[in-house]
């Protein structure tokens, strides 16, 4: 039986994919991140995963519960 999709992983994955791309561009000197921008980007990535989990409907009970 296929397992249900996980929205938190999906949103977190997209967020960290984008964050990794931004950091990669910074390291390749395409642009330069300031401390404020870096902090905002990291908080946004972590925050998006938190928001996704907060908006998630109740998960079905585990089989062992």
């Amino acid at each position, binding site marked *: 039986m296929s397992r249900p999709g996980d929205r938190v992983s999906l949103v977190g994955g997209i*967020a960290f994919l984008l964050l990794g791309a931004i950091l990669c561009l910074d*390291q390749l000197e395409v642009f330069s991140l300031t401390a404020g*921008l870096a902090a905002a980007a990291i908080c946004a990535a972590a925050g998006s995963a938190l928001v996704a989990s*907060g908006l998630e409907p109740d998960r079905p009970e585990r089989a062992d519960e």
Partner: protein
Amino acid sequence: MTDQDDTQDASAAPTTEDREPAAGPKRLLRSQNDRVIGGVSGGLGRYFDVDPVIFRIAFPVSILAGGLGFFAYLAAWLFVPADDGTGAPMPAQRGAGFIRAVGVIALVLAGLLGFGALVTGAAFVTGIGYGYIVAGAIVLIGVALIATSFRGGARWLIVPALALSIGVGVAAAADLDLEGGVGNREYRPAAASAIPADGYELGVGRLAIDLRDIDWSPERVVDLDARLGVGELAIAVPSDVCVVAEATAGAGELRIAGQRADGLDVELSTATGSPATPQLRLDADVDIGQIRVLNDDAVDINVGHGSFDEHDGPFDEFAAAAQAARDANEAACSR
């Protein structure tokens, strides 16, 4: 009492399967079924009727913001009873508290060390010029999260992704450069010609440059570049030398001839454009740490914080020393 009565009593005793939660107010319990470490987040999620992952992310994040989350989690693990699977608290067992405390401390310390090691490692790799590899790893983790999201997800990957991001982000924001080596370096050039044309550089550690042995003749102008990745950069000049400085810090503190600035992406300039001689034209940069320029004839560059902040006395004394350093530089630059 007959055998029949005993049978009836035994059958009337509640079992784990048919026990009902005690009636009364809702009680916070550590979850036995939804746990990663101690079941605290699972219990909190059930108590507040929200997803436990919120607490699983919030606890580590709060540890970074002063460490309150660490003690809160520890206290909850120690003092909040576990549920027995039915919503009722599990009966206490002798010695279980001590064993649990040791286990909690060991696990939390291991988690903190692991998270800190990832952050530090990512920052170090970025500092030596391979940050794009770590950034690429974060992209791959993102791809893995997306790929697994259609098959149940792998939320735990968010934690290492966050740790790596913090490490690269801090190093990138501070332009961390650790390629100059590690250690304590002290330079005391006897003549201006002994100063390297490309200046002095150090990756991590303490870089001390004492310029007081140079012949500071009245017309002398000395150019000095100094770069430090992480640590302390201390430069000493005689009090009658005009310090014309352009100093920057990605994160840290600048103390130059009695002037002070601190914070993130901080810059400090002194006596810009002054034609006074003798003069030190300084271009200094630290990624994370402190730059101190001591315009003092007697202070030991290696003792304490030197110059105007070496005093342990009251604030007035500290302020007076800083003012004296500012006055000395102002006098030297207005000749």
